[in-house]
């Protein structure tokens, strides 16, 4: 008879200690990243400090990280809505692109409107275009039984190419010397900055979206039904929950939220539509949503952390000439360790006798 390590599911998952597990996972991933740097002959400890300083170590840095967190947060909130119903929307990237297109269309078509009409109209247009782009895979899923992962993924490529087509073709600014971009938006179409800071009022949109998200799932019937439907489709159908309707609803909401992110990006940060707004926020959003367990507050924290990581890694490049890909490695490692760490929240080890 031998003594061996065995596992057992906990009666109740860890609560407070799960913070420790999370911290442990983060430390492990940072240690692995540092090791990789060490192997490349870079000062690992200092490098980690530089990343932190670059991301959160000054007011500027914090501002930069916050600005970058905005689109990630909105896209992530969007996919979280769909994920709660177990609908795998991988298409935030495309819905974000279409949202940007919709908002730009309004900005370019009605330049004479005052800002208090123009900006809500842009937001509405972004919701419609983003939402419709989300509705397509939902309808195909319900009517044709296609897999939404693949359809949303393919629609991403198509949306980005459509954006390309617009800025290389019909929407190209005649005064841009042929560069692929629309003309610059008028000031009325630009979400303005808060006071002296670099932050824009889009942050407020994020907070509002987060609160609405929370209220929706906490207090409304649809919110409850989505959660129930996500946990058990069959039981939900049995309980006469309108599953098909909910699938369409979450995909439209999901797309609309990603569309908002697109609206803020073209309006507040770039001031025009151009292909460079596509930098993969939609994919980061999926990762963030899961790290945060689909909780709006945690999504905020995780968005800020991942945005900070990206901002901080730039500092690392500047100071130590570490290739840009290092940030991806860190991101991947953090995700995998946190994911694996979840195990310790739900299971415990004990020494037992082997049969």
């Amino acid at each position, binding site marked *: 008879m031998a003594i061996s390590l065995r596992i057992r599911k906990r009666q109740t998952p860890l609560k407070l200690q799960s913070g420790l597990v999370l911290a442990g996972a983060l430390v492990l991933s940072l240690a692995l990243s540092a090791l*990789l740097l060490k192997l490349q002959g870079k000062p690992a400890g200092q490098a980690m400090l530089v990343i932190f300083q670059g991301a959160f170590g000054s007011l500027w840095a914090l501002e930069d990280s916050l600005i970058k967190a905005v689109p990630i947060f909105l896209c992530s909130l969007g996919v979280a809505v769909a994920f709660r119903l177990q609908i795998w929307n991988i298409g935030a990237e495309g819905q974000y692109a279409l949202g940007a297109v919709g908002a730009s269309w309004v900005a370019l078509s009605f330049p004479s409107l005052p800002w208090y009409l123009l900006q809500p109209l842009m937001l509405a247009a972004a919701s419609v275009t983003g939402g419709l782009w989300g509705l397509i895979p939902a309808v195909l899923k319900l009517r044709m039984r296609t897999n939404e992962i693949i*359809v949303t993924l393919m629609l991403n490529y198509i949306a980005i190419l459509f954006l390309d*087509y617009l800025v290389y073709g019909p929407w190209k600014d005649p005064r841009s010397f042929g560069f692929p971009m629309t003309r610059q938006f008028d000031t009325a179409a630009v979400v303005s900055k808060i006071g002296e800071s670099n932050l824009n009022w889009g942050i407020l949109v994020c907070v509002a979206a987060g609160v609405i998200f929370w209220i929706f799932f906490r207090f409304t019937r649809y919110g409850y039904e989505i959660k129930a439907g996500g946990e058990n489709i069959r039981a939900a159908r049995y309980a006469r929950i309108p599953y098909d309707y909910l699938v369409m609803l979450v995909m439209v909401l999901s797309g609309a939220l990603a569309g908002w992110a697109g609206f803020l990006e073209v309006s507040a940060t770039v001031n025009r539509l151009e292909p460079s707004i596509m930098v993969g926020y939609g994919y980061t959003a999926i*990762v963030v949503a899961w790290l945060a367990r689909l909780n709006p507050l945690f999504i905020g924290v995780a968005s800020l952390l991942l945005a900070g990581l990206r901002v901080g890694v730039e500092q690392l490049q500047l100071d130590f000439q570490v290739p840009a890909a290092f*940030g991806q490695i*860190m991101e991947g490692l953090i995700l*995998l360790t946190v994911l694996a760490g979840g*195990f310790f929240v739900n299971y415990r080890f004990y020494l037992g006798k082997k049969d």
Partner: protein
Amino acid sequence: MDGFTISLLAAAVQSGTPILYATLGEILTEKSGILNLGVEGIMMVGALAAFLTALTTGSPALGFAVGGLAGALLAGVHAAVCLGFQGNQVVSGLALTILGTGLANFLGTPFVGKSGPGFTALPIPGLADLPLLGPIFFRQDVLVYLSYLAVPLLWLFLRNTRWGLDLRSVGENPAAAAANGLNVVGWRWIGTMAGGFLTGLGGAYLSLAYTHLWTNGLSAGRGWIAVALVIFAFWRAERAMLGAYLFGGVMAFQLRLQAAGTHLPSSLLLMLPYALTVIVLVLASWRQMRSAMPAGLGINIEPPD
């Protein structure tokens, strides 16, 4: 058929081959019940490992094998997270894509743009002279011929062998498989790593045969296409071949349309392969989808108390 069409079809086979390897790998993985969305990352790591091995040893054949092994190793991380630690398969796969792409780009930085040894076209005597089929299928490189073998082998394995049956039953109904005395977790490890091996070969094809170069982002989204094609193929090897060639063909076609002097905007032409994938998926899914998907796909098995 004229020369233009024949060369288009030959190009379809070649540009479809890396996607075909990756699709076969993902089919094997998913048949065991594990969903691995890390195909893109695995291809990247496979491509770099293969290229570096070929560059240092001068042997592309060794490089091809090492590309596969590197793919299997990275897929092992996915298996560890999902099977060992009960991690969510969708997220773990996405993390793997990020990690694999990052690792390959990071470690490959000193080798970007270097040219290494690789495979070139090797017509098969006799077969290459067949009308029509010869120039399309038998004037390719050795790795393409290997993929011709891999397709029926995987088909036979999954359909007609004891082991294949075991692997599939683990993916279909893990509880029943366990009741029958099968080691469910073990089989899923095997499925995931063997699938990663094939996927790694797909990456190796990119850096050893398609081009003889290494560069950042070499895979350029082909891994995601492979994930899509698995469903398109209803988890069947022979259909994966059709899908991969169709996708490769449409890609090659839009470039040739440009070369022939069309005036259509290139953005719209580039949409073709993706739009086609959706359309075909819709047409094909209509009736058959549900029955084809392994019932246990993506669901973790909780360890017994």
